[in-house]
Structures are given as C-alpha cells and as structure tokens.
C-alpha cells in the first residue's frame, strides 16, 4: 500500500513555520552551507542524477535545464522562479509559499550558486497578497541572516533576490510570457527557439523553474540523489504534492511518491463525498485531458498518465461526482481559456471565442446539429498551432469530454444541462435553486 512522504509539507503544522527561526529550527539553510562548499558543477550533476523533473506541468528534467545554459561569458545569467500558480485546480505552490517560504528561498540560493546566477527573481501572481508579504519578509530575513547578499557565509558568492508581483494574467505562467511580463511588457509568449537557457530575461541565459521544483532542491542536497530516487518510479523520481479538490470527503494536499494512484489517494481522503460516486477528474489541472473511474489505477507518474492519454501536469486532482454536468464543466473551462488567451496567436484567440459560443448553446440545451463536429474541428485547428501550450490546453477538456461523455453533448441539442444536472445537487451547501440566471450556471457572454 502506498504511503505519504511529507518533505516539503513536513513543517507546515509547526508553530510559525514561515519564520526564519521556525525554518532554521527544522534544519533550514544547512543545505545552503553544504552547497557553498561544493563545486557548482557537482550540484548540477547531483540534481541531474536525482531525476527531479519540473513540477510546474511540463515535467522537463530540472538538472538538464540547468545544464543547457551556455558556458559563462562574463555577462549575467538569471534564475526566475515561476510562482504564478494559476492553472485551474492547481493549489500547491501557494500553500507552500504561505507556510514555508524559506525552503523556496534556500532552493533559490542553492540553484543560483549551481548555475552561476547573481540575481534571481521570484515571480508570484499578484492575487495572493499574504503570500507576497511572507515572501518579501522571508527574503529580507534571509539577507539579514547572511543567506543572501554579498559574500554569502564567506564563500565569495553574491546573490540578490527580487520578489516580483504579477498583476493578474494566467498566461504569465507560461515561461516566456512570464519573462516578457518581468521585463515590464504585456505577458505574451515568445517563439522558441531561442529557449530561455540561451536568450531569456533581457536576452541573457536564464533558467525558469517552478516553485515546487526549486523547493525540492535543498532536501536533494542533504539527502543525496539516491535518497530522492528511493521514492517514485524509475523515470518519475521523488515526492510531489498531490492536490485533491472537489467532491471528495477530505480535500487537501497529499505529498506522496510519484506513481501513487487516485484510488490510493481517494482511500486516504475518505473517498468521494458520501452517497456519491466518481464521474470524471483531471490528473493535472484543466489543461490535461480528463479521466474517468476507469483510470483510478493509473500510476500518477509522467509516463503512465501519458500512456493513458493525459498528462501528469501539476497533479491537480479535481474530482467531480455523478451530479456534475460535464458540459457545464467544460463550458466554464472554455470561458476561462477564452478570457485568458493573450491574443497573440489567431487560432487560440479566435478559436476559444467560437468554442465558447458553441458550448454555451449546448449548455443551454440550444445546440445545433453538427455542433460536436464543429467543436472537434475547431480544437483540431488550435492544437499545435499556437506559440504556447495555452491553446493546446484549451482543447484538452473538450476533446476528452466528448470522448468519454459524447451523449451529454448530444443531449445539449435539446435539454439544458441545468435540467439534466441541477446545479444545487453538485454544490457543497444546500440552497433553493433559482429559476434562471447565474445560479443555473450560465455566464453572460
């Protein structure tokens, strides 16, 4: 039977774990001192050997990303932490930074030393002001303790860290859009190549890593690569935070080895809410194709989820029971993608607009003959035709939902989703349904 392996979450229940004192009391910043005594190249090799892969969704090997930086040319190189957590369903980095910001700061210091960076940035979304306060204070306290700044702990290594607040734009979670945003521009993705490793922030070599990836580094330094690979699977090593939400008895954060299954996690979480059964779920946020009850035993690692037709993504397990209209769910995700499309690429900008129109009429029971084919056709014209993964992500919920629940989309030609699946039955509180309007789940276009 699978077990949980709290590492990043281990101190969240302590007294004031976000303070420098709290973090240091639980062994914090020992890994930084250890790292500063090591050769930078050995640190990169260690993280490569650990098999740590990006925890922000794409799963690219972290150490390899660091290794892609060109040889030092005397100019600056940057580390940028992607703390713009906003993929629907994803809710791991925000609680991590609220409870334990210093593990991220320590990871930033170690990583910067490993890659030869002297100015690192943490780009946190602007819609979480208390998380931003805790990060600002953690960085200030780390400076005061000599963990950041000039000649850190007598090593001769200098590092400045700037915590930067975004201003509300999902697209800035895409690494090149994030870099444009950090340069003071509209957050729009860049055409790759060149990749950020070659021409990133200010066109200089840059590593962009997710919060959880960087926060995993201190324990890898302390425990060693073998410690990390003792958890997880061969190609998906280590621990990761799995976020359960929705129609589940005990929603929350479960830190476990990669490769655990939803069946195992649900058992720990007390199952789907009482009296109900699983209908569909996302393995890694709304941009990953949905799964159903037939996927309960798919190991949640990069390879197995991919082989089953979806993506591990951010391990954002949004659970929906049989009361939920899949058409309503997909229509709302599509509203989101249409709202958040940055407008740079025509297939995404125009395609999400039309997907939204068609899905709204299906949700209202006013669908027209051929609407399902239109949806699939538009998706086909977006997929792979935009600069970044937002366009692709917009198609995932639609194509996967039609694959598993086509009959519900067909029902949208004659019956409103709110009749087939009264929204009050899905809500987590009791209320008397309204006759029309927003409570029926219809957003004005």
């Amino acid at each position, binding site marked *: 039977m699978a*077990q*949980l392996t709290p590492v990043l979450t281990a101190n*969240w229940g302590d007294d004031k774990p976000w303070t420098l004192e709290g973090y240091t009391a639980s062994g914090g910043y020992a890994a930084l001192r250890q790292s500063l005594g090591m050769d930078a190249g050995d640190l990169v090799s260690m993280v490569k*050997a650990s098999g740590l892969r990006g925890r922000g*969704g*794409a*799963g690219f*090997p972290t150490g*390899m990303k660091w290794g892609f930086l060109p040889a030092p040319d005397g100019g600056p190189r940057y580390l940028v932490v992607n703390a*713009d957590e906003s*993929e629907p*369903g*994803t809710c791991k980095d925000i*609680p991590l930074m609220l409870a334990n910001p210093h593990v991220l700061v320590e990871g930033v210091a170690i990583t910067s030393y490993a890659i030869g960076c002297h100015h690192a940035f943490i780009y946190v979304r602007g*819609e979480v002001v*208390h998380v931003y*306060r805790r990060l*600002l204070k953690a960085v200030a306290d780390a400076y005061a303790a000599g963990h950041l700044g000039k000649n850190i702990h007598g090593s001769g290594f200098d590092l400045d860290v700037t915590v*930067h*607040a*975004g*201003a*509300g734009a999902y697209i800035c*979670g895409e690494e090149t859009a994030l870099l444009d*945003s950090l*340069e003071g521009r*509209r*957050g729009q993705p860049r055409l790759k190549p060149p990749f950020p490793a070659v021409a990133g922030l200010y066109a200089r070599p840059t590593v*962009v890593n*997710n919060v959880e990836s960087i926060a995993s580094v201190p324990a890898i330094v302390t425990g060693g690569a*073998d*410690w990390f690979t*003792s958890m997880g699977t*061969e190609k998906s090593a280590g621990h990761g935070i799995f976020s*359960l*939400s*929705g129609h589940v008895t*005990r*929603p*929350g954060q*479960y830190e476990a080895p990669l490769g655990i299954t939803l069946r195992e996690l649900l058992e*720990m*979480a007390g199952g789907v809410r009482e009296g109900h059964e699983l209908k569909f779920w996302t393995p890694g946020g709304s*941009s990953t194709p949905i799964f159903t009850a037939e996927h309960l035993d798919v190991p949640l690692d990069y390879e197995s989820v991919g082989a089953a037709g979806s*993506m591990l993504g951010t391990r954002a397990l*949004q659970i929906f029971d049989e009361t939920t209209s899949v058409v309503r769910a997909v229509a*709302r995700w599509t509203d*989101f993608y249409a709202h958040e499309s940055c407008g740079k690429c025509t297939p995404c900008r125009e395609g999400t607009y039309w997907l939204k129109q068609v899905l709204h009429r299906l949700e209202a029971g006013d669908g027209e003959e051929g609407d399902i084919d239109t949806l699939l056709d538009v998706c086909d014209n977006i997929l*792979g035709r*935009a600069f970044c993964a937002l366009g*692709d*992500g917009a198609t995932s919920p639609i194509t996967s939902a039609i694959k598993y629940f086509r009959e519900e989309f067909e029902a949208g030609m004659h019956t409103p989703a709110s009749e087939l699946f009264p*929204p009050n039955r*899905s*809500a*987590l*509180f009791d*209320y008397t349904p309204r006759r029309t309007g*927003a*409570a029926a789940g219809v957003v004005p276009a």
Partner: protein
Amino acid sequence: MSGFTADVRTRLDDDAAQIVARYPEARSALLPLLHLVQSEEGFISRNGIEFCAQTLGLSTADVSAVATFYSQYKRRPNGEYTVGVCTNTLCAIMGGDEIFATLAERLGVGHDETTPDGTITLERIECNAACDYAPVMMINWEFFDNQTPESASDVVDRLLAGEKVGPSRGANDVASFKQVSRVLAGFDDGRADEGVAAGAPSLVGLEIAKEHGWKAPSLDGSDDAAATTPEPGGTPGDQAEPDTGEEQSSADRQPTTPQDTDPTTKTSADKTSAETKDDAAGASGEGTKES
C-alpha cells in the same frame, strides 16, 4: 508633468526610485509602478500612466498597452474592497455560481461593478489556487475559504457597515484596496507574521501521515524513520520497522531495468530519450503550461 500635486509627486518619485533599483533594467519596474499609482488613486488614471511613462522613459501608449493587459489594474475607480468570487469550473460547481448570484442580488451590482457608496467592487475571478478550500472568495486578494451564500453575505454586510473583516488565511483583517496595491508594489506593510500558516486542507495529508506513522525516507540515510505499512486492523507504529531495502521499507521497489540495480548504467541513453521526448512534446505542443 504628470497631474499629481508637487508633494504627491515627490513622494511617488521616492517610491519609484526604490522600485526601479530592484531591477537590472528599469522597464522591469513597470508592473510594480502600476501597482504603486493604483495605490495612490485607487485605479490607473491618466495621471498614473503619465507618471509611469515619465519615470521609465516610455510613451504613454507603451504604458497603456501594459496596463490594459492585466486584470488587477483597474480602469475606473475601484471600491475600497474588491470582492471576488471564484466562478472557474471547480468553485462554480461546488457552489461559487450561487454565491456570486447571491452577492450580485444583495449588492445590486454585476461583475466588475462598484456599489454606489464606493465600498465594494464585485468580480467573478478565475482560479486563485485554493481549490481544496472551494468555494473560495477573495477580498482584496486575501483568502475567504469554504464559503456559502450565507457566510459570504455576512462578510459583505459587515463591509457595507464599515466594519473590518478577517480572512481565513491572511492578515488579521483585510487592508483597503489602496493599501494592498502598495504592498503589491513591493512595500512591506509589516503584516507577514499575522495569520495562520495553513488551513486544515493544507495539513490533511500531513495529519494522515502522522496517524499512520508514515514519513519520507530519512535524509541522513539511516532510514531509522522509514515508514511501515500497518497491517489491516493493526495499530499504526506497533510493528518492527524493516531495514533499508527490506520488504515494505521505503526502498522496497522492484528493479525493473538494469539501471535500478546498477546506477552507473544511468547514462546518456536515458537522458537522450527523455530529452527527445520532451522536445517532441514541446514541438507538438503537448507540454502543459507551467503554472
């Protein structure tokens, strides 16, 4: 000149100098500068745009293009409190739609509209990374977790009555829109130590691990803390712990490839395949968005 009075301008210039100093290139200061001017006027005014443009040597068109891209920058005077109800899929289905409808009815305003007294701007917001606390409401970007129509109405009523309200996770009470905008410009208001570390859902996995005596493998390699799996019906922690590599120890994983038994074989072949796979995924656009 920007339209600010001389003393306001002097104060903003001082703040702006501190912001610009945080970055290797000045233009990076634009987002925090926009938060700063919003903290002065409660929205991004023409004055604010001119100030940012003059500070950074940009055109007002450049600044406007950026200001209009991001949803937190307001083009009209905002209420003292932004009440945001998450109506992205998960929160909407868990009850967010009903909460929004209740508040819209109570306040007599719709999305991105402000009550006549200037107290509350109501918004539908997108996923705010608190799905395990659904349905979620944000007030000036502080978390109000596990809401119902009644709890949300109660909070809103208190705001209308001029009372302070406290979030589930955040500062002791919610600061004003202008004050929060100043924090987002990077000026610490000294409130980081207020509030909790985590709510119950953030801790649920940790609690379950403690109940069962589960831990990650120990970092010093001794593995004396290696977790045991209780037999069905057994009491957690009442069994002898296995040694490393023994059955049910943390290292109990069946070898599936040569690399599992001989680490030295974990070489370029592995990396190349992973790299190719990821490149292929990137090229066909199958990577998910970093979030």
